[in-house]
């Protein structure tokens, strides 16, 4: 296995009486781009700040390159961070902002000049050395903030929703650049976001959090296709969550239909199946080799590359099915919802989270 840059062991954190981080464990391999993903209040920023040292965990250990750091003050860790509001020093020029951390370390003047220039070039900020933050656009300030962190050559780079203050177009470009730079430098990176498309497109590894609990750690494909909890399935993209019963065999029962799954199920036990809208199809006649359920189309939306159908099946459950490359013909009335059994993912969670 690849070397680990960061390990968290049984981290717990309380703010007053509320338990905001609950028994979090994770291993982050060197050079990986890791995203902490979750809705607001899930604890992702709190975790990031613990790595930076702004909070101390109440229980547990944090290891950075095999050294315990959870008790170290922020200035004794090499974990440069890009803040959501950038936090550029308004009284310093771009050059001085980027050079700040190196100056603190007492790096030689020539060396500072060289490294700052490199970092600014990398972020395409040449010629802006003498500007002040308030003379720059949001996108430029953001680049300065990244340059200021990169120049420290951190053991792990921390990014706290760095794109949330940029407009949609710019966000896309900066996202691609960030990923390219990270891969070029082989920099271990932790990125905090609530935007699932950002997480899917950027990450090697995604950590999905909810209410201080890690729901799943996995690569984007695992998170998308093989969600471990209904929360993950529901939070990432759109899905159909179907309540089914175990049969005691390698199948689950939904009404009269039986769907084959990857493991043996307990008879009578409740399970959840997740079927993505693009994994199912509609047809007028039932299809061979697939599970097909009879239903009626209640609504539809034409979205250009696809048509999204809303279907009520005979058990009253509403399905969402996407048909791509639809042409001009749009279905209506009675149809069959068909899906291949291997496209239906059995969510194997011990307790289905019922607090909402």
């Amino acid at each position, binding site marked *: 296995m690849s070397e680990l840059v960061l390990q968290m062991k049984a981290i717990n954190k309380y703010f007053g009486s509320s338990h905001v981080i609950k028994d979090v464990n994770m291993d982050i391999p060197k050079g990986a781009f890791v995203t902490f993903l979750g809705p607001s209040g899930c604890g992702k920023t709190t975790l990031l700040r613990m790595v930076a040292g*702004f909070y101390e965990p109440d229980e547990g250990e944090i290891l950075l390159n095999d050294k315990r750091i959870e008790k170290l*003050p922020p200035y004794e860790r090499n974990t440069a*961070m890009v803040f959501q*509001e950038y*936090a550029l020093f*308004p009284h310093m020029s771009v050059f001085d902002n980027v050079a700040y*951390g190196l100056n603190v370390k007492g790096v030689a003047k020539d060396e500072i000049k060289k490294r700052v220039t490199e970092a600014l070039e990398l972020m395409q900020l040449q010629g802006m050395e003498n500007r002040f933050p308030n003379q720059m656009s949001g996108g430029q300030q953001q680049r300065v903030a990244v340059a*200021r962190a990169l120049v420290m050559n951190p053991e792990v780079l921390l990014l706290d929703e760095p794109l949330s203050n940029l407009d949609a177009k710019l966000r896309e470009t900066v996202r691609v650049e960030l990923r390219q730079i990270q891969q070029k430098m082989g920099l271990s990176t932790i990125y905090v976001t609530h935007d699932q498309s950002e997480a899917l497109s950027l990450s090697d590894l995604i950590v999905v959090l909810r209410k201080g609990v890690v729901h799943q750690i996995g690569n984007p494909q695992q998170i998308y296709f093989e969600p471990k909890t209904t929360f993950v399935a529901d939070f990432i993209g759109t899905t159909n969550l179907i309540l089914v019963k175990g049969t005691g065999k390698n199948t689950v029962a939904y009404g009269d239909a039986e769907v084959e799954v990857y493991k043996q199920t307990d008879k009578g036990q409740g399970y959840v199946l997740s079927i993505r809208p693009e994994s199912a199809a509609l047809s007028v006649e039932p299809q061979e080799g697939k599970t097909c359920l009879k239903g009626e189309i209640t609504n539809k939306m034409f979205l250009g590359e696809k048509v999204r159908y809303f279907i009520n099946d005979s058990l009253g459950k509403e399905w969402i099915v996407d048909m791509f490359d639809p042409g001009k013909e749009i279905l209506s009335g009675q149809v069959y919802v068909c899906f291949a059994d291997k496209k239906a993912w059995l969510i194997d969670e011990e307790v289905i989270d019922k607090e909402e």
Partner: protein
Amino acid sequence: MKEKNIGHEQTGFKTELKLLLREPPLLISIIVVFALFGLFIIYPFAKILLVPTAADWAKAVTEKEFIEAFCNTMFSSLLATTTAIVFGFIFAYAINYTDIPFKRFFQVVALLPTMAPSVVSGLAFIMLFGRRGFITWGLLHLKVDLYGAFGLWVVQTIAFFPLAYITISGVLKSISPNLELAAQNLGARGWYLFRTVTLRLATPGLASAFLLVGINTLADFGNPMLVGANYHVLATEAYTQVVGAWDLPMGATLSVFLVIPTILVFFVQRYYLEKNSYVTVTGKPVAGLMRVTCGPVAKWCFFAFCCFICSAIILIISVVCLFAFTKTFGYDWSFTMEYFIEGVMQSTVMQNSWIASLSTATITTLFGIALAFLTIRKQFPGRVLMDFLAMLPVSLPGTFIGLALILAFNDGPLSLTGTLWIIILGMTLRQMPVGYRQAVAGLKQIDKSLEQASTNLGANSFVTFKRIVVPMLKNSLSVSFVYSFMKSMNTLSTVIFLISPEWNLASVNIMSLSDHGFLATASATACGMMMTIFVTFGLVKLVLRDKINIFDL
């Protein structure tokens, strides 16, 4: 931003004028405001400049005693301001940047002196360290004379420490903790972090605080009178010229000299420091993050410092209370109401002060919001001038305002000398900038779209103002009401020339009683004053049903 506005104004002058002519109520209110400003600001200040003759000017710059007074003033206020600012800064830093215990207690104690006239610290100094002072004479049997420059330095430092602390605390609070977190994240710590980030970001605000405290020490009248002894400063010298030698022109000349540095300071602050302020470009603070930037040793040093300052303040207040309610402080400790009855109950001064201050607070608050509404929400020619005139009195020493008013309204059709009106006028001039500034800050926070939404839903300008703007401004209005009431109760320099036998005020009485050695009665009056202020706060709270905490000012 500012340049853009001005440019816009020049090109749009005609359109603005046209718009104005289309709205007669607006036009009338603007004319009224300018007429009031002309009569009560420009006229008196022009008058005070015209009264002295060439000979007076010549005498003021050549005669040795005046030059000495000028130098003394500069020296003593520079010294006192510096120490007050340093103390205020350390205190504010301890409150905002460390996790020392008893913070809340320290905050409250530090603001207690603002409830009493600044001359109370001079009074306490006499009682403790004077020629017959409790500590120097009573306990240590020393025959020392601490009056003069040294005593003045100590007394003014204590008297103006709360102002320095409040102002600097505001400055430190406006620095986004994110920036300090970012610096820590990049490896900065302790002194380096403080020097490169915190101090640099606070510098413009600190300079403003320095100037503000500086104006107050320059204009301070009561303390130099009580403990200055032979150390003459301009404010007392002007008073002696007017009241002692009955030489009004000379008094006017001297007070003009007092204004020169403060006006300079005003312009520096207004046109240089405000432009170079960084506070607006920082992001919103992170909730739940405490910025603790110092180690344990530094923390306990800060704690010790806060204890030291607070015990000094508590000592002052308690010695004043003890003096007021014991027969003979230091010898006969039995309780007595004698002085309190003499100084507060049997005298009309407290009542007079209360009436004048309450009227002043009402006028400044209402006038402040009306002014702010004009300058912030309306476009008209002369807007910048109106803003300037409304803020101008903040830079004028009270003695100067008082003198200008008696010179201007001594006779003629508007003869106000000796009436309650001239007292209220003086207090109002002094406090107007506070009410105005509060209202401006409040109005700027209310997004214009809220008012537009109200009009869009069918409310006219008046209804919008009443139902949307005023309720949203309520907090900042009650702050400015309470503040100008308190300041008016305590002011001494503004009213020293304006009082008459018929209309004497409590703050003046405290000063003259202590000057004549009636320390116990003076202390009783000071206690009565603190009580009056507290009771009035309570009443205001009941009436407005707000949650304003004066210690959060």
